[in-house]
């Protein structure tokens, strides 16, 4: 029975923080394995094959980035990065290297659990097979390429639709500016996020009641955007 629990690897060198995360995860039905540095983590992953890794970017021995790169070279295991508030750039680098999402220290337990649930769900379902995304009044119909707010159709341009689709397929998970730009304008597009901002402003004016208090597409300042889940 115990083996059916999802296994989470926590890579964290602060003992108290590790202990608090372990307690919370175990209490919520996860099996927890622990590593206190990058080398140990890289040793453990192939033998334990955890379902998800929580990785602190402030590790003492090696760069958390190396762990991400190394894991991403052979595994699509979800990686949740933990960073301090002023490590904004590291966060973005980690995400662009292939980490799936992040939580910022200090974080609450509900936030941590929500991120883990989202990642585990994304890892299980192949999102391209879903027909539509629904969150509150918002419906994104991937096949018919239409977006509705309530029963009103929102008329999005081609690029706006691509942005909304990318966010909806990754609902609940942050997408960096660069990831979105690559998704919409292709991998070789200049990473000028100005155009993305303008598109986003237009999308918000079409989808949100009050663009300054958005319900569906949330800004992660300095990082990117996140579609709220239903």
């Amino acid at each position, binding site marked *: 029975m115990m083996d059916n629990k999802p296994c989470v690897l926590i890579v964290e060198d602060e003992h108290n923080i590790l202990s608090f995360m372990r307690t919370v995860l175990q209490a919520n039905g996860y099996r927890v394995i622990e590593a206190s540095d990058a080398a140990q983590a890289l040793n453990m992953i192939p033998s334990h094959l955890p379902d998800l890794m929580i990785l602190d970017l402030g590790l003492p021995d090696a760069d958390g980035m190396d762990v991400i790169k190394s894991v991403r070279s052979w595994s699509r295991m979800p990686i949740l990065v933990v960073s301090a508030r*002023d490590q904004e750039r590291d966060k973005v680098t980690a995400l662009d290297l292939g980490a799936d999402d992040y939580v910022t220290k200090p974080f609450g337990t509900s936030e941590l659990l929500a991120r883990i649930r989202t990642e585990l769900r994304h890892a299980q379902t192949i999102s391209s097979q879903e027909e539509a995304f629904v969150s509150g009044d918002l419906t994104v119909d991937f096949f018919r390429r239409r977006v509705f707010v309530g029963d009103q159709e929102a008329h999005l341009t081609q690029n706006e639709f691509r942005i909304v689709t990318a966010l909806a397929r990754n609902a609940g998970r942050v997408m960096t500016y660069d990831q979105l730009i690559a998704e919409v304008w292709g991998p070789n597009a200049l990473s000028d996020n100005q155009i993305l901002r303008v598109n986003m*402003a237009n999308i918000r*004016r079409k989808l949100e009641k009050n663009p*300054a*208090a958005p319900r569906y597409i949330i800004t992660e300042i300095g990082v990117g955007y996140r579609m709220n889940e239903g």
Partner: protein
Amino acid sequence: MVRVMRVNNMKQHTAVSDALIFLLTMAAAVGASLPLKLVRDGGVYMPMIFLAAVLFIARFTSGYIYGAASAVGGILWISYMFRQPYYEFDFLYGDLVMFACMLAVALQTSRMTQQLREQEGAYAEAERERVRGNLLRAVSHDLRTPLTSILGATSAILENGDALTSERRTELIRGVYEDSEWLIRMVENLLLITKVEGAAQIVKRSEAVEEVVAEAVAKFQKHYPDSVIEVSAPEDLLMVPMDALLIEQVLFNLLENAVLHGRAKRIELNVLRSDGEAVLEVRDDGRGLQKADFPHLFDGYMGRVERASSDDSRNMGIGLSVCLSIIQAHGGRMEAKNVRPSGALFRFTLPMEEADDGQ
């Protein structure tokens, strides 16, 4: 890079204005001297005019060059126009004495000007030190209280765990939770101050104001779920160069002030555009600001007196002084006032052009 360029610009700027002061003053002195040509023995009054010009130039230009140059220019002009033989340079012993006097005045005045400037700099530095000291005192004081209560609560739980009822234990733990939350926000603010102090470290990027506002409000409502905030922003997308995390913190602090200090029920957050700058205002319907608070509103002293009796006002002063430092580092302005029928209004501006920065 941008900073270095600005410093150079400023140097050029003072060089240009120094030359201008020199030329205009000399022209004025020459102009004033011409009528004396018509007066008999007018030449006698000449040195007075040029002495005044030398004094003025030495006082309002930097360095010794312009003062000395004006003394030389003055003596040449006097010898050329007002000494026989007229219209040629011919120096008498008296001219040399006069020249020595003018030069002495020029050099002494330049030196005094220099000293004055240095003193002003030292005074400003001392003032900054004083503000920093106040802040440090205020912070240490503010940190001690929640830490004491955390220590007390946790040791109570550790030592009497079994004897406590579960409600009692939950209450203690909730206290620890709230105090830690508060401490974290305080520390974030302090980190921001150190970041802002060296203005060079502020990295501004063009950001959509509505996104920053939305993020600040969302974060605030996570901490204060009962608060009612109405946001309005212009229809056009407003892009402003800023450090978005810092501005987000400013908005968070202002909103928190409105709730904790102003006891506001309803808060309005308005984004406006006025020429060349974005204007953001936080208006609440709370009890407003005390008249006595105004002089210390932004310097870390705010709420210090009341704090002894009611702890809801803690953090107010530091929060506001962080706000002010951040806005100033962006080249913006910040103001506070009371509004009718009740409540406070905090308003700050952010220049939309990078060039307006800091000036």
